[in-house]
């Protein structure tokens, strides 16, 4: 662990307990597997036992962060090799702070290792997505529908698709400006949701709620026009 990250961890540990943590009793020991119980015991200990546990935890998180970086590396050819290492280390440091600050939130619903992995993977993924979009403009408007041409379709199918496309465009135009920008950025232009949240100074949950509302309104619009919007993502993938 770096000196900087150790200091950050100590700051995290001095934070007051969350309301959620205060409201919850410690997990009954009988509900935890042996490995999870040992982790919690050591991380809640004092002195050398705890220090060693924090060190082991950081190593576990770093392994997860490197795993994520390795998975995504082929899609990020413009990043240098040492940048990947730095991102993995930063992700592990940040995940360590999150895990230690939320230790009382662990309820034993999964293995402790699985629980902590998700923090490291999330931190690494968010950092990599942000790096991939660094310096790029975020498209919030749809400039062209040309990619959705009906070339190659039979005349009847092309007419049906054109009708649905026109209804979609009308339905999108009928959304609130905020819903329209979020829908276009996320669903059409493929901007990652955490990148957009960062640029708009909001969070992933709030953006997805807006996306969900926009999608629901669009479905309702199509239904009122007598079109069948039952085709869904599950049915296409």
């Amino acid at each position, binding site marked *: 662990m770096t000196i900087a990250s150790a200091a950050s961890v100590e700051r995290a540990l001095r934070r007051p307990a969350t309301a959620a943590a205060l409201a919850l009793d410690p997990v009954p020991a009988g509900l935890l597997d042996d490995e999870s119980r040992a982790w919690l015991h050591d991380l809640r200990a004092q002195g050398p036992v705890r220090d060693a546990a924090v060190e082991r935890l950081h190593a576990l998180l770093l392994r*997860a962060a490197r*795993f*994520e970086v390795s*998975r995504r590396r082929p899609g990020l050819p413009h990043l240098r090799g040492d940048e990947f290492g730095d991102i993995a280390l930063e992700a592990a440091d940040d995940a360590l702070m999150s895990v230690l600050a939320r230790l009382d939130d662990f309820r034993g*619903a*999964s*293995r402790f*290792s*699985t*629980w902590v*992995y*998700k923090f490291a*993977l*999330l931190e690494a*993924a968010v950092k990599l*997505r942000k790096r991939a979009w660094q310096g790029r403009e975020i498209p919030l408007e749809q400039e062209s529908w040309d*990619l*959705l*041409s*009906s*070339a*190659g*379709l*039979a005349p009847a*199918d092309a007419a*049906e*698709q054109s009708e*649905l*496309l026109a209804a*979609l465009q009308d339905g*999108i135009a009928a959304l609130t400006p905020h819903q329209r920008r979020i*829908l276009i950025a996320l*669903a*059409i232009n*493929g901007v*990652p*949701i*955490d990148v957009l949240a960062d640029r708009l100074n909001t969070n*992933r*949950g709030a953006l*997805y*709620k807006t*996306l*969900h509302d926009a*999608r629901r309104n*669009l*479905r309702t619009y199509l239904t009122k026009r007598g079109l069948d*919007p*039952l*085709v*869904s*993502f*599950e*049915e*296409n*993938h």
Partner: protein
Amino acid sequence: MQSPDFKHMLGRLLGPAKAEIGCDECFEQLDRYVDLQVAGQDADAALPGLRTHLHGCPACREDYESLRALVSAQP
């Protein structure tokens, strides 16, 4: 019949038709979902709405795929 590009775009625009949970709830439940799956149990019955969210949210789906792959790779 619609073109593949159009179908793909339609799916992304309309999202899942079924009830789904949000991103925050997905993150909270993701570790249990993966552990249940890896153990061969019915994760979808235990955590309804999560799989549907993974269909509608590419970022959460990526996070899920990574966690599933990492846990599956553990001894």
